[in-house]
């Protein structure tokens, strides 16, 4: 049973879209409004605001202060947290420690990204610099290219095939259709994924998630505050974090993501549970190969055996371990700073029994796996009711 000392009492998310018709402050308010209505608390109960995003997509410097003002949270302290694509789960870990220490009893974790302010090619350039800017970026790197190298290594080491990757996208689209906040809601056939053009071999267009604009918001509280405000608090059981060398050359192997494996081990140890105890999981499927690497890093499959899980449909809603039944990043889109908070929202709704058409029956323990950069920052969170 989880230690009941830090809880999630409210979750919210904007629709993830290709071009949000407003500024970043307004985009953030969308998720904040939903989370505060969900929590049912007045804004003066928020004692600190953690804003999570990656820089250089919009022009605002130090966005946390602007957002603190727009949300009406002054004089609550605020600051920005960045760990690339895992920024909002890093913010979650900090909020956890704030509450656990007693420094603040109620904390708002707000993630956002408005990627449509720049072109898709410029997005790739920014992401390519989310790597070793001195020794890697000068060769023309990008996120798809890095994950493609992990896919190629998995193919060579374990016999994984493009067909296995395509099955991950087909599953994502099965559930993406049901998610009204997803950017991509069309059903995708196996043939469509296989016939799409290459982005960076062996990854094809539909192996990659889309850039998006979006925001997410998670309200966290101490046990006392959770009991005061919330009928259905969801408790934090495990927080695991790890970091791998930024430069691929400095890593010992390319068989999987060590930051995720170590973060998972830490989260399981803290929660006192194992992979077999997880009822529902959200993993960082920025690319199809990333979901297969996640199965293995989290112990849902042995190293090299991730493809078997998707071939056997074990990660579908009816399977042994449902993964990304909200459509994942592949369907929802991936607004960098907002992504982890969106994953958390899905798990919280699952544990409350409020996930609707994608509800995993009687889900008691859920897991979030959120990765920053190409296996640079690993955050794994375990929640329970």
């Amino acid at each position: 049973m989880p230690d009941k000392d830090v809880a999630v009492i409210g979750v919210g998310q904007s629709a993830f879209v290709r071009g949000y018709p407003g500024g970043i402050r307004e985009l953030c308010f969308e998720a904040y409004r939903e989370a505060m209505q969900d929590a049912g608390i007045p804004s003066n109960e928020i004692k600190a605001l953690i804003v999570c995003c990656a820089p250089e997509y919009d022009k605002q410097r130090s966005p946390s202060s602007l957002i603190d003002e727009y949300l009406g949270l002054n004089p609550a302290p605020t600051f920005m947290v960045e760990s690339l694509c895992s920024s909002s789960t890093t913010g979650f870990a900090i909020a956890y420690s704030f509450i656990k220490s007693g420094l603040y009893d109620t904390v708002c974790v707000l993630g956002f990204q408005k990627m449509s302010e720049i072109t898709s090619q410029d997005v790739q350039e920014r992401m390519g610099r989310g790597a070793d800017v001195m020794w890697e970026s000068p060769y023309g790197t990008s996120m798809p290219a890095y994950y493609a190298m992990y896919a190629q290594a998995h193919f060579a080491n374990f016999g994984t095939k493009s067909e296995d990757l395509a099955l991950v996208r087909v599953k994502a689209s099965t559930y993406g259709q049901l998610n009204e906040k997803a950017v991509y809601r069309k059903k995708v056939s196996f043939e469509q994924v296989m016939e799409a053009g290459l982005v960076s071999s062996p990854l094809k267009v539909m192996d990659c998630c889309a850039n998006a604009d979006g925001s997410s918001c998670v309200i966290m509280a101490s046990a006392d505050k959770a009991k005061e405000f919330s009928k259905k608090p969801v408790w934090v059981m495990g927080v695991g974090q790890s970091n791998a060398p930024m430069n691929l050359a400095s890593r010992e192997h390319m068989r999987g993501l060590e930051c995720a494996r170590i973060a998972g081990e830490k989260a399981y140890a803290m929660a006192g549970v194992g992979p077999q105890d997880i009822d529902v999981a959200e993993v960082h499927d920025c690319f199809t190969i990333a979901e297969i690497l996640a199965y293995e890093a989290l112990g849902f499959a042995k190293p090299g055996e991730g493809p078997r899980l998707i071939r056997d449909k074990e990660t579908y809603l009816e399977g042994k371990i449902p993964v990304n039944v909200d459509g994942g990043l592949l369907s929802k889109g991936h607004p960098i700073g907002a992504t982890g908070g969106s994953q958390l929202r899905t798990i919280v709704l699952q544990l409350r029994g409020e996930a609707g058409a994608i509800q995993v029956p009687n889900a008691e323990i859920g897991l979030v796996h959120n990765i920053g950069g190409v296996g640079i920052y690993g955050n794994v969170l375990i929640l329970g009711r």
Partner: protein
Amino acid sequence: MGFEKFGRKSFTAITKVGEYVDKLESGEISTTRCPKCNKTYFPPRMDCPGCLSGSLEWVKVPDKGKLVSFTNVKYAPTGFEGDLPYLLAVVDFDGFRMFGRLSSSMQGTDIQVGMTVKPVVVNYDNGQIAHEFVAAE
């Protein structure tokens, strides 16, 4: 100064390992080693996190390495469009690894993880310089 010449497009000008580019210009591909820890690093660095020494020595990269993984890039970030398609790779040198491109001469050839490659100097048309790898044997 000097490091702005490294790679297709550099994002860094000043570093303590700027000598890397001078060495490339004389045809040598090298990295640094901490003599005290007997450890070779890539990327090259002048600070050893093992013993905190600030005096590392330059050593030549071996002639042969093994391809750990690669990708053929078809969609380039801003500033690299003119090079498409291009191959990115990680190569293992038994003790350290290097990141770089595979030579454009390998486009269309049968590239396999585990194959032997050798590091070579590439001079780009705009005066930039870098290391890359080409099939060996």
